[in-house]
């Protein structure tokens, strides 16, 4: 504690804070960046498709065909668009006017009446495989509920041996926003933390002021704390702002406790800041530090953290790589904290991993800083 209160450290903190205030870009990184990104993300990123344009070709109008189309037009998932012929429909799909095409063949009603297998042809544009699969699922859903109603109305007994009764836990309406927003907080904090510190030591190296600082009586630890603390305060400010937005603007439920959230955020921010510091100390060059910050922060946090893509489905080698991405642990913690509650069996190991990574980055920074000076 004595070190924390020393006038030298207070002086350093004052100097760093002044430097932050002088170049408004640090404050912009901490407050404007998260708000802007969260707004964009929160409103822009959604995996729930509605009103998908789907082409429909009815080769031979009939009452059966119109009752099927009626079920289709009621669904919020589709925006039907009619084509006269199969050929025109396929051309529309090729021109990307529609995402999928439904063809009710000429003998549809006939076969249906005769209880023979009446196939409906469905073609989807498979370029975006995930959306295509969801579209298939929606079509299937509309089709099977229509079919059941139709068969009941016409009193045709059909065997339905097993019926699934699905219940979704934690996110009953399957709103993708509820799972994306906690992940976005992590991407946000990764950027903020690393960007805030990635340039600080590199800048002082380039300007020669670090050596000037070294000949003063301040210790290495004091320098590190002096650099870290002001940015930590800034970063936490950004985090609080982001959480408030998640809760009140995007209305993501919060089922865990706030003190766990605060504690884990602290750990993660220290890790992110530590990574930035390490980049800064290793490169000693603002230009290279900036380039590495671009490469090492955003894309890994975006793609390897489990925020969007399921880590369990990645090949084993890539799964190993995800372990060095700090965002991975924080994403797991946050998704559970927001949607499920304090699941200790999940929080404890992930928080431990964060402690490990933070001490690794900060410890290595301290060691390297000393070595570089000799």
């Amino acid at each position, binding site marked *: 504690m004595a070190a924390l209160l020393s006038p030298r450290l207070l002086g350093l903190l004052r100097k760093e804070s002044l430097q932050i205030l002088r170049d408004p*870009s640090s404050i912009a990184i901490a407050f404007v960046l998260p708000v*802007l990104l969260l707004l964009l993300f929160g*409103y*822009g990123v*959604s995996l*729930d*498709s509605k009103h998908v344009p789907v082409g429909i070709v009815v080769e031979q109008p009939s009452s059966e065909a119109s009752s099927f189309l009626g079920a289709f037009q009621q669904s919020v998932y589709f925006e039907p668009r009619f084509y006269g012929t199969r050929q025109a429909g396929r051309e529309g799909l090729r021109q990307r006017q529609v995402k999928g095409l439904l063809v009710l063949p000429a003998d549809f009603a006939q076969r*249906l009446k005769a209880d023979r*297998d*009446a*196939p409906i*042809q*469905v073609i*989807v*544009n*498979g*370029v975006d495989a995930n959306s*295509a*699969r*969801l579209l*298939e699922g929606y079509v*299937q859903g509309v089709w099977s509920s229509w*079919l059941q109603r139709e068969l009941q109305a016409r009193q045709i007994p*059909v*065997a339905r*041996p*097993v*019926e699934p*009764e*699905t*219940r979704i*836990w934690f996110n009953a309406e*399957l709103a993708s926003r509820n799972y994306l927003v906690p992940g976005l907080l992590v991407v946000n904090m990764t*950027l903020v933390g690393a*960007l805030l510190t990635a*340039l600080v030591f590199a*800048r002082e190296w380039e300007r020669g002021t670090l050596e000037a600082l070294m000949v003063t009586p301040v210790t290495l630890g004091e320098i590190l704390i002096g650099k870290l603390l002001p940015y930590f305060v800034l970063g936490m400010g950004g985090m609080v702002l982001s959480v408030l937005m998640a809760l009140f603007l995007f209305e993501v439920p919060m089922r865990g406790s706030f003190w766990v959230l605060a504690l884990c955020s602290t750990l993660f921010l220290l890790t992110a800041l530590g990574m930035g510091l390490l980049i800064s100390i290793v*490169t000693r060059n*603002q*230009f290279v530090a*900036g*380039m590495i910050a*671009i*490469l090492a922060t*955003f*894309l890994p946090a975006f*793609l390897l953290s489990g925020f*969007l893509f*399921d880590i*369990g489905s990645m*090949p084993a*080698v*890539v799964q190993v*790589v*995800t372990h060095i991405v700090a965002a991975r642990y924080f994403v797991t913690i946050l*998704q*559970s904290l927001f949607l*499920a509650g304090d*699941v200790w*069996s999940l929080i404890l190991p992930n928080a431990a991993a964060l402690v490990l990574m933070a001490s690794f980055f900060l410890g290595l920074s301290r060691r390297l800083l000393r070595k570089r000076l000799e």
Partner: protein
Amino acid sequence: MLGRILALTVKEFLALFKDKRSRFVVVIPPLIQLLVFGYAASFDLNHIPYAVYDRDGGYAARELLAHFQGAPSFELVRPIQRQEEIAELIDRRAALLVIQIPPRFTADLVSGRTAPVQVLIDGRNSNSAQIAQSDVSRILTGFNQDWIAQHQLQGMPVSLVTRAWYNPNLESRWFFVSGLVGLLTLVVTMMVTALSVAREREQGTFDQLLVTPLRPVEILIGKAMPGILIGTLEASLVVTLAVFWFKVPLTGGLGVLYSGILLFVLAAVGVGLMISSLAATLQQALLGAFLFLVPAVILSGFATPIDNMPDAVQTLTLVDPLRYYLVILRSVFLEGAGFELLLPQMWPLALIALATLAAAAWLFRHRMS
């Protein structure tokens, strides 16, 4: 004029490549990233850990579970004996879903009644949940069909015959790897250009450049050249890897592909130089690069479809060069599209390139500290 531009271009390349680390950073990490991300970026679930709580134990239940065991993407964590274990497994994410077979399941089935099967899914990742849900219902449909055939019952008289164009097995890797080509082109181009003018400004050498006989246009070309060359080269490398390593089919022509690449690289260089000349320090330039990069990726349709966004946000995506480039890449790769189909994507790119490059040239002279 040509000689002056050439001299400046050479100087820019030297500035970029004289440092061993920045040489390394420009070339190696993007390739590693493609390899890692190419495998990571996929919505396909090929490991669905599930648990079974069989309260029936009859032969029909065993038959149903055999269908799940036969599905390659489903992995049985363990059978459950007590109700409380369900929550425990799902909470700590040991299982994505739990299948609960009620008592009397076999009896119901044999007597011709519809038997319910309870499926509990972890919804924390709503996309995985949705995919798992449809996988489960596909397996149940398969079981129903088998059961109906075995017991000579009356089945559904209508069927859906589904086909997917351009990507018959609906592999989302094809979609993402072609998208990664765009992402990495953008990142590398931004890295090379966004910091370049800002660095010179911070060091004061940009003012020196301005008092030389070089005209702003010439400075612009000289500053843009490394970005254009490295961006195009990087894109070619990444395309090669996508085709030969990830085996994504390249069905379209190289002429269309390279027109798209060139237009996009020009637009990205324009944005990078504009950010760089607006910034007074490297930190501001870095912030600017991220403020462009992150929204550009999010709003491009790389991972989540633009059609799902609210109208106001969709309008915003119109100024995102990556949006057009991704459509070009995916169409050329998977659909084999030609110029006539991609013209609506190409002219906005050209427009963005023109506007940002002009703005950058203007800013060179007019933003002096």
